């Protein structure tokens, strides 16, 4: 099973690049604390609308995006705070966006589900399941035509696999040899729908192969495993100029969004998965390998907590967009009013 293999390989490289590992750990911690704070702020009604948190899945975004180059593009979903953050969108601008402020990375227009950042090629933030895949192949198509060796990296949940847009996008990506990494974040549920009740065939790599797309499955709770596998996948994509399908098996700790009675799963199941927590397991591993001691860990924690607090401060001090700008950006010329 993929999981074991990965753990094995990770174990095999003991003192490998301490600074890199601490970096990966810190990235996961940044996401976790950001999400915890967002949750808290939502209950205080500072953040509104839908809020989909990423707790438990941090290793996926961190492990994959670690290998993404500056010129590559990322297309994600409504559960994308973590992806934006590790891509390099500042926590300040993310938090300000959750607050709906002009200083937010989408100018307060998007909110939690629609984070965008042109500077880092972070292309959302789409809240229509499956909707991001055609966009991703289009980006890959353009990069190929432009003779750039950039790739499009597309994150989506396993629920998106059932949408027709998944089917059409994988066929086109394969048919046209497009440089696209399809990262399926399989957290076992699409809202309340258990994966095995949604898929007649639960072997997703087999599905990818039905489009002649190479793929593999990795333990999404193991940041090094994800990082190494996606590194290989991305190398393959750039070298062969072909798409790749990567399934990351992970788990969502929290409710799907903030309104979720969670009738569809047991507290026990959640508890079991938390034992595989990507942050605690990796922390233990680093300590065991002598790459991390308690002081260093406290330091990391403090840095992250400070960053979070600062981001709240930043958002609190953010400004509201003036009403007269409401029709701005419906069209580029900002014509508007009676459009």
């Amino acid at each position: 099973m993929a999981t074991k293999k990965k753990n094995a390989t990770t174990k095999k490289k003991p003192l490998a690049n301490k600074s890199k590992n601490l970096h990966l750990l810190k990235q996961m911690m940044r996401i976790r604390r950001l999400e915890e704070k967002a949750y808290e702020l939502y209950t205080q009604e500072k953040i509104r609308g839908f809020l989909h948190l990423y707790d438990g899945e941090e290793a996926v975004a961190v492990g994959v995006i670690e290998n993404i180059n500056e010129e590559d593009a990322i297309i994600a979903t409504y559960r994308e705070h973590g992806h934006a953050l590790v891509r390099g969108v500042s926590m300040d601008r993310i938090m300000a966006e959750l607050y709906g402020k002009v200083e937010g990375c989408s100018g307060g227009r998007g909110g939690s589900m629609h984070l965008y950042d042109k500077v880092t090629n972070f292309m959302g933030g789409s809240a229509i399941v499956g909707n991001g895949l055609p966009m991703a192949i289009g980006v890959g198509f353009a990069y190929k035509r432009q003779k750039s060796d950039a790739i499009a990296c597309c994150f989506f949940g396993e629920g998106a696999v059932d949408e027709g847009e998944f089917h059409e996008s994988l066929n086109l990506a394969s048919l046209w040899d497009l440089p696209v990494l399809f990262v399926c974040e399989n957290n076992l549920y699409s809202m309340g729908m258990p994966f095995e009740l949604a898929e007649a065939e639960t072997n997703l790599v087999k599905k990818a192969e039905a489009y002649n797309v190479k793929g593999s499955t990795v333990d999404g709770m193991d940041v090094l495993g994800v990082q190494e596998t996606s590194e290989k996948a991305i190398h393959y994509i750039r070298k062969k100029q072909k798409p790749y399908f990567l399934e990351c098996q992970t788990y969502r700790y929290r409710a799907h969004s903030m309104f979720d009675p969670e009738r569809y799963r047991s507290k026990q199941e959640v508890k079991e998965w938390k034992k595989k927590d990507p942050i605690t397991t990796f922390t233990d591993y680093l300590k065991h390998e002598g790459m991390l001691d308690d002081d260093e860990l406290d330091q990391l924690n403090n840095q992250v907590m400070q960053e979070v607090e600062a981001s709240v401060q930043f958002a609190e001090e953010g400004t509201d967009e003036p009403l007269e700008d409401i029709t701005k950006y419906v069209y580029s010329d900002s014509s508007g009013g009676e459009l």
Partner: protein
Amino acid sequence: MTQITEQTITYRQAVREAMSEALIKDDRVFLMGEDVGRYGGCFNVSEGLLEEFGEERIIDTPLSESGFTGCGIGAAVVGMRPIIEIMTVNFSLLAADQIINTAAILQYMSGGQFNVPVVIRMATGGGKQLGAQHSRSLEGWYAHIPGLKILTPATIDDARGMLWPALEDPDPVLIFENTTLYNSEGILTGNEGEVDIQKAKVRREGNDVSILTYGIGLQKSLKAAEELSKEGIEAEVVDLRVLRPLDNETIFSSVSKTGRAVIVDEGWKSGGISAEISARITEELLYYLDNPVERICGMDVPAPYARHLEQASLPQPETIVKTIKKMGGLHG
């Protein structure tokens, strides 16, 4: 969920009871959609129905809007009475082919041989800071399509009473439930049994101006009417209820009485159903009109997330009041 006293009931409960009644009355009825079962419905509307009716009648689907909507259409053609739930109208764009290329035209194309008695329920509307992809009101847009019937329950009675006649209707019926209404409470008048899905309803009588609205617009319009009343302006509030086919008769009789018409529609203004109503009124009643027909609609912008912007983009009671007071020849 909000507390319910003996006699009051929420819009959400009304929809659930309507489905429960239909499932009991007619074993050809089933409910199919994303998370309608285990999850209890993304707006908690179908809570408990899976436990009550089982997996044969309450069917959770994968994310495949076109697939399961078409599945409901096909099942309807051969004798079932499906209730298809599409979480929100925004996702129905993925099922547009099945709704428009099949359900709306099958009977016509087949020379009357195959009718499509399917009911498709969707949540609609904005105002909850859900952003540009989750806040549309497209019921008026679907009303452009011949072959579809479009219902917009705005009251507890209609939420409770419209489903059964829709299921008995031999043609495809789309029911649009405004998300903001789910928590609204009201008392079942007991008339929901005789709900008519052909006609509009006058919800408040008045002689000075007709406010024509539907869905979430009704509450806002009634609120505005109360305000106006304090200033001696009596507005008649017409709940359209059915956006296709429109009930011209009720609309025209109200406007010919008041001589003034204001249409309140949370959907986008340009090319919306508000334009059709305005056009019909002036075509029919030009010489009765004391003022141009006014339209108070959603602004022509994708929904912004920021609350102050989104609220500014939607019709508000204050706007209705201001607009009507500005109309010529109104005392008060």
